[in-house]
């Protein structure tokens, strides 16, 4: 019986193909917009999360200067970080995988006739660990190179491309500023960060060599701390703050003169901001679904009026009110479900195209698709109900007389 009714509905939809299509359009656009929005949105969220986790998982960043508070002016004097803090954190911090100091400077790097302005980072081997960075070839710094401040370096993929093409840079000597430096290893490519920064345009060298020959100061800009997987980053953050206050003798009545940023939290915050945005856009798209539903109601009213005589015949030969009700309800549902399915296909195609264009992951969600199917069916039922009821309540005698 229900299959019969669905077949009947499909036939009626086919008979008025153009009208059905135009009616569907509202639902198609609504569903397509919702699907595209949500799919692109979750792709963006994934991208943001991936970008931030590329900095290193469970990463905390310690910098000099008090945490930026809204409305606070420029800070007068900043007490820089130094060996003392690194030593204290290395010695006393528990639940961490790596602690690594780093300082950076943009310097022109020359090899042969080629040159490139690159981000020169003075650090140690723990930096690779903290930032989840592996070597593509060569070796990390040796113990003596780090301690003795020897001019050796690890270069990023962009630097290699510039100077060596796809060749092996191992053992070559590049000039950084006025210092000649021997390449001992090549870093794995990381690509662009979410902020559009080329993460592979870097040269790493031992911290002491960097301080002495490039920066000309013993200041340390940043201390990277990677928490181990068993310890929540919030716990590590508190421990870092305790050790730092202690080391830098910040008394209880004074503000921190350093900041600790938890990249995991930032990632979560950004992801949830993206999700909120997605939800809002999705809601706006949902409004067009409502409009689509009204379109269906409209056309179903027309359909019931047009087929008054048919309804009269059906009632006369023994159809119950509920038979007529179901017939038109199924027709409205088939119509909107069809629109929903087309909308899903278009929405996914749009999201696919957008993910290619914006180089974000294509993240279709089965839940969202099922929700769209269910929702479009629901729209058909809700907006089809009134017209169907009107048809079912017709007086068979009146209906048979209808021209």
């Amino acid at each position, binding site marked *: 019986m229900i299959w*019969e009714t669905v077949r009947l509905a499909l036939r009626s939809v086919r008979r008025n193909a153009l009208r059905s299509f135009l009616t569907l359009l509202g639902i198609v656009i609504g569903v397509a917009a919702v699907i595209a929005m949500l799919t692109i949105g979750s792709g963006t969220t994934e991208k943001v999360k991936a970008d931030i986790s590329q900095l290193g998982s469970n990463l905390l960043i310690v910098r000099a200067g008090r945490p930026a508070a809204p409305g606070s002016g420029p800070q007068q004097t900043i007490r820089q970080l130094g060996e003392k803090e690194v030593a204290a954190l290395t010695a006393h911090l528990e639940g961490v995988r790596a602690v690594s100091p780093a300082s950076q400077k943009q310097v022109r790097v020359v090899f042969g006739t080629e040159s490139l302005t690159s981000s020169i980072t003075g650090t140690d081997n723990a930096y690779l660990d903290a930032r989840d960075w592996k070597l593509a070839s060569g070796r990390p710094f040796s113990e003596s190179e780090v301690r003795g401040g020897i001019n050796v370096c690890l270069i990023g993929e962009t630097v290699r491309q510039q100077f060596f093409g796809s060749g092996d840079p191992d053992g070559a000597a590049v000039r950084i500023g006025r210092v000649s430096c021997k390449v001992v290893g090549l870093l794995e490519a990381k690509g662009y960060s979410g902020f559009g920064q080329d993460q592979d345009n870097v040269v790493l060298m031992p911290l002491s060599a960097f301080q002495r020959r490039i920066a000309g100061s013993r200041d340390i800009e940043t201390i990277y701390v990677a928490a181990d997987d068993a310890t929540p980053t919030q716990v590590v953050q508190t421990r870092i703050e305790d050790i730092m206050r202690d080391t830098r003798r910040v008394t209880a009545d004074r503000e921190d003169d350093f900041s600790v940023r938890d990249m995991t939290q930032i990632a979560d915050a950004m992801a949830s901001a993206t999700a909120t945005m997605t939800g809002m856009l999705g809601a706006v798209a949902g409004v067009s679904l409502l409009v689509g539903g009204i379109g269906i109601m409209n056309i179903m009213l027309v359909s019931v009026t047009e087929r008054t005589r048919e309804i009269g015949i059906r009632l*006369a*030969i023994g*159809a119950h009110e509920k038979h007529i009700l179901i017939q038109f309800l199924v027709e409205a549902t088939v119509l909107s479900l069809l629109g929903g399915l087309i909308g899903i296909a278009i929405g996914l195609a749009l999201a696919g195209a957008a993910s290619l264009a914006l180089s974000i992951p294509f993240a279709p969600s089965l839940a969202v698709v099922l929700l769209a199917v269910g929702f479009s069916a629901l729209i058909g039922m809700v907006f089809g109900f009134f017209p169907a009821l009107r048809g079912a309540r017709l007086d068979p*005698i009146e209906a048979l007389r209808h021209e």
Partner: protein
Amino acid sequence: MSLAPLIAFDKVWKTYGHGEAEVRALAGIDLAIDEGEFVAIMGPSGSGKSTAMNIVGCLDTPTSGHYGFMGTDAGRLDRNRRAVLRNLYIGFVFQGYNLLPRTTAAENVELPLIYRGVAAHERRTLAMKALAEVGLEGREHHTPAELSGGQQQRVAIARAIVTRPTLLVADEPTGNLDTARSHEIMQLLTSLNQDAGLTIVMVTHEADIAAYAGRTIAFRDGHIASDTKKLEAA
């Protein structure tokens, strides 16, 4: 032969509208029709014959009085109960055929069976049989637009008898047909009445069509003006 008449009107009144605009369609009709009868109802328009037909066919109910159909007080049933009654015991043939357009003859004939919940293959078998009875073998898959008026009316008759009803209600069944086609349809109805024992109540305004019936009832101003039985009809 049955003890109680199939159709029993007991002081049936039917009025439309209220107050000044009240129209009296039936004014206290008493009428009994037995199973197996072939009754023609005649009368000018506005005489109440169509209203009486609608009540006989359980499409309408009296304003007052009782309408008994097969021993039940059909005039007091709600519309869905009357729908069941129509589906089980009554077949309808209309002047304008009232077939579903763009739907094949077989599908049209199957329609009442759908509301009875008959399975698809059985529906098809019964529909084919009914179409054969009305002489439409080979036309089962034609749509109404591909059939002549006489053929369309035959499809309508097949639709009416496919459920094997007790009563056939025919509202000017030959009104849209030429003389030759009209007599063919009437011969078909007569044979259904005589061979299958189908009770037929037919509205017509043509005397030669009414002559096929064994009993002719004339309506005038909401009353029965005359009720005559043919002598040879036993």
